[in-house]
């Protein structure tokens, strides 16, 4: 028989407000095995914990039940308390009488009755608890960063600077991500390339960083401290070691009509290409869908001109397998597809552009070499209309996103300001729902756009953009403050498209068993207190894959994730969760049902010799669980017909004891 102590917490008035804690303690005192039942204002406080520790020692308790807040909140706290008093931490059970009782019931009688039943269930369970000892598993001191944008680069640099090897996997031929496409950055207006490219070079030259560009994560196995990842290196048809990045092949390539994705299709590139001058790695890549040699077998000009002999048309996708202790997701974002927003005529007129396209149109390395020209006729635009919240903050789910994309207000202010600064002859309108500028020097920046640069901010939504016969765009909008309908004849319309997580994020989340929200943003382990960790141990989040954010915020989160990774990698081993499955060999049929449902491959079989009741020996096939690999889901326990497989901490008999206590 266990000697059980019951500790009922008031949580100030959080629990005591709707649960008669004295009555609960009194009722639970008479449960079998309970030697002490008491209550205290704050069990989690220093004094409360001391009370528990003293009771464990004084009453020689073998198990304790704390009736308090959710175990998700303080189970770890009370386990530590028990351990400090010499009681095995797994002899602690929590009855959740706050979140699942006092906070949802208003009637004292109802709340008290339920709290007593929840306490009884916990007591019934703790009677069947057994001391558990946590095992240890080693940590592979290497990190994987998925995504090579500013988030991935910053995370990788920080981890590498702490002395741990890092691999970056980037699906594009170069790292750099969205920031490489941006012209200037708010609110300081320094040029994005000037601050990003040195970091790209740092990453490339860092002896601890290895970049797998033009690669994808194909498979993830394992668990925190011990992931095994298969990386697919897509065939570039160019040997990255031999290629010097001289660009001769790009120059000579006869196929020059491929839409250039780096400039969002606003100009053309050749079939063999280097995305931009500062690409890292600066290696050419053949686009097999455009290359004449790949398509027709005729040409081969690039191979002829390449002095390094780097061209290899027979190159195949290859796979690398590497072990990692931690994985950082930095898959970033994309502007949404605007096909559904017909009213803005995005698909009807080339002069209606997205903000990212506008970014390229003003970039010195862009299709117009930095001179703002109308895409349709290459003329200088005089009237520009910027539309904010295109697809952001949409009601309902029919199109667009319900969330705020966060960065649009600021980059629109930047575009408008730069436009007016460079071309004072332009008239610039910005249509907005709200202007959101909470950031250091952000509001000042926005006010400068309005006050110093004369950008015309109009609160209201654009209803329709209609291309006119003369090549202009008729913008129909409402001014909500003046309460009038506006018609503006514009030369260009710039749409601040909502941003969404990259398409690769969803399949990646499945591989990582990391959870996502309905918008496919990765969820964090705790929205406030653990913002850079995924709920899946060993998986960390960096940048826009977790939610929309600007560059400074991305970089802070990237460094935060790096700090968490470093904190993990400095450990030589991790303490395992002892609540894992185990098999009773005497009952095991060896049928493999458990093995088939185990998501971790934690179950193996071996032939073992057994002494049978009739004193003969027999060889039997029995299951055994690797406790370092098992994560304790319990799928196997139900697949097992004989009940040989059971789960520590959530055993069949424990759960049934809880059921019995509740149904009594």
């Amino acid at each position, binding site marked *: 028989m266990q000697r059980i102590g019951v500790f009922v917490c008031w949580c100030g008035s959080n629990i005591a407000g709707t649960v008669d804690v004295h009555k609960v303690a009194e009722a639970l005192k008479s449960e079998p095995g309970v030697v002490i039942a008491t209550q205290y204002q704050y069990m989690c406080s220093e004094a409360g914990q001391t009370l528990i520790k003293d009771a464990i020692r004084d009453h020689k308790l073998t198990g304790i039940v704390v009736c308090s807040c959710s175990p998700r909140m303080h189970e770890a706290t009370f386990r530590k308390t028990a351990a400090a008093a010499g009681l095995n931490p797994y002899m602690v059970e929590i009855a959740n009488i706050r979140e699942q009782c006092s906070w949802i019931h208003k009637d004292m009688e109802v709340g008290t009755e339920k709290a007593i039943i929840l306490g009884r269930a916990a007591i019934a369970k703790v009677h069947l608890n057994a001391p558990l000892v946590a095992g240890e598993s080693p940590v592979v001191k290497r990190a994987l960063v998925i995504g090579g944008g500013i988030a991935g680069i910053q995370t990788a640099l920080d981890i590498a600077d702490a002395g741990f090897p890092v691999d970056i996997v980037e699906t594009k031929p170069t790292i750099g991500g969205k920031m490489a496409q941006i012209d200037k950055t708010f609110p300081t207006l320094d040029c994005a390339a000037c601050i990003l490219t040195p970091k790209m070079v740092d990453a490339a030259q860092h002896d601890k960083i290895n970049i797998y560009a033009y690669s994808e994560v194909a498979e993830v196995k394992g668990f925190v401290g011990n992931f095994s990842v298969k990386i697919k290196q897509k065939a570039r048809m160019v040997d990255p070691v031999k290629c010097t990045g001289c660009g001769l092949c790009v120059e000579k390539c006869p196929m020059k009509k491929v839409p250039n994705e780096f400039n969002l299709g606003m100009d053309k590139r050749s079939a063999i290409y280097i995305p931009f001058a500062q690409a890292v790695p600066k290696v050419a890549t053949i686009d097999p869908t455009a290359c004449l040699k790949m398509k027709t077998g005729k040409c081969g000009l690039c191979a002829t001109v390449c002095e390094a002999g780097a061209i290899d048309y027979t190159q195949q996708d290859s796979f690398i397998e590497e072990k990692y202790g931690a994985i950082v997701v930095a898959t970033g974002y994309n502007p949404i597809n605007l096909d559904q927003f017909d009213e803005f005529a995005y698909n009807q007129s080339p002069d209606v552009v997205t903000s990212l396209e506008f970014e390229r149109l003003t970039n010195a390395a862009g299709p117009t070499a930095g001179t703002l020209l109308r895409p349709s006729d290459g003329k200088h635009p005089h009237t520009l209309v910027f539309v904010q919240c295109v697809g952001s903050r949409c009601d309902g789910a029919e199109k667009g996103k319900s969330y705020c994309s966060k960065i649009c207000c600021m980059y629109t202010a930047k575009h408008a300001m730069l436009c007016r600064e460079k071309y004072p002859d332009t008239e610039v309108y910005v249509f907005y729902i709200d202007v959101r500028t909470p950031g250091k020097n952000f509001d000042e920046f926005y006010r400068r756009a309005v006050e110093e640069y004369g950008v015309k901010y109009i609160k209201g939504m654009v209803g329709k953009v209609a291309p006119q016969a003369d090549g202009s765009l008729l913008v129909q909008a409402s001014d909500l403050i003046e309460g009038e309908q506006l018609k503006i004849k514009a030369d260009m319309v710039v749409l601040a498209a909502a941003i969404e997580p990259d398409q690769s994020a969803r399949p990646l989340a499945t591989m990582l068993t990391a959870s996502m929200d309905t918008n496919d943003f990765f969820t964090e382990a705790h929205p406030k207190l653990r913002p850079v960790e995924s709920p899946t141990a060993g998986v960390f989040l960096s940048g826009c894959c977790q939610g929309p954010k600007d560059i400074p915020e991305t970089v802070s989160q990237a460094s935060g994730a790096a700090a968490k990774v470093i904190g993990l990698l400095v450990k030589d081993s991790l303490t395992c969760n002892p609540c894992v499955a185990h098999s009773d060999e005497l009952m095991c*049929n060896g049928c493999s049902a458990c093995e*088939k*449902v185990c998501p971790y491959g934690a179950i193996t079989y071996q032939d073992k010799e057994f002494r049978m009741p009739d004193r003969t020996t027999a060889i039997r096939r029995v299951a055994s669980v690797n406790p370092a690999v098992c994560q304790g889901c319990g799928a196997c326990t139900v*697949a097992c*017909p004989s009940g040989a497989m059971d789960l520590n901490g959530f055993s069949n008999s424990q759960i049934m004891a809880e059921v019995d206590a509740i149904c009594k």
Partner: protein
Amino acid sequence: MQEAMMRRAKELLADGTVNRVLGWQKGEFAYDHTPAVFDSADQLEQFVYDDFTAANLSKYLVKETKQEGKILAFLKPCDTYSLNQLTKEHRVNRDKVYVVGIGCEGKADVEKIKALGIDGILGIKAEGDNFVVETLYGNQTVAKTDVLAERCVVCKSRKLMTYDEILGEDGEVINSNRFDMVEKLENMTADERFAFWQNELSRCIRCNACRNVCPACTCEKCVFDNVNSGIANTAAADSFEEKMFHVIRAFHVAGRCTDCGECSRVCPQGIPLHLLNRKFIKDINELYGEYQAGEDTDSKGPLTNFTYDDCEPSIVHERGVE
């Protein structure tokens, strides 16, 4: 057939292919042949095979293949499904069995014969569409359709799934109407279904015959015998117990049951237990795609498998009658 089987068994014993033979021997009555292991030609004189030889032998191989040497097993099509399933679950070492597959035209249900008022049964012989039943009072001819066991009337397959050699003729998989009764029950109201099962299951005496004969129930220790399982019970003290027992038993064999019908054959109370198993099979076929346990030895069973777009349990609300 019996002669041919005995001859072949003796040959295989003599040439050392096997050292034992798993077959049937006569029981107390002419119709209750019981499974038996023979280890010599002499013993084989007790060997019996006729239209009453119904028992599925595959389960015995769990124990027998742990012994020294290879054993000869005469298996009917039904039994070969069970053997495959047991092989898949590593319960039987297939390498230690020499399977002689025997064709099957269906077995007679002695209770149905008795129900026709035939007594003093001494033997049985198939003649075309009829059985000739030898009795103390002379021969009686009965139509096969009247006295075949239920599982044979709705036979799903006469095809041997695994064998080392065949005696007689292999058959074909049959597009049977074995789910008709399940469907009939599904179309009843919940109250009618409850009344039906209350009536059937309340007769259960928890003799465990269904479990003991079931080739899918081969656990080293059954949960119902394990005092630590929390659900151990032996006596039918309350109507709930039978439901708990039969639902759990059916669930444990779901996706593994080959529908051999042994549970109903041996039930002394005549409870149509196979309907529970068939309900699972029917659900699995309809919800997760056709699956026949025992067809192969390597596929993933439906309960150790899933697809991302499986139906939700609420489908129960959308189907059948409330």
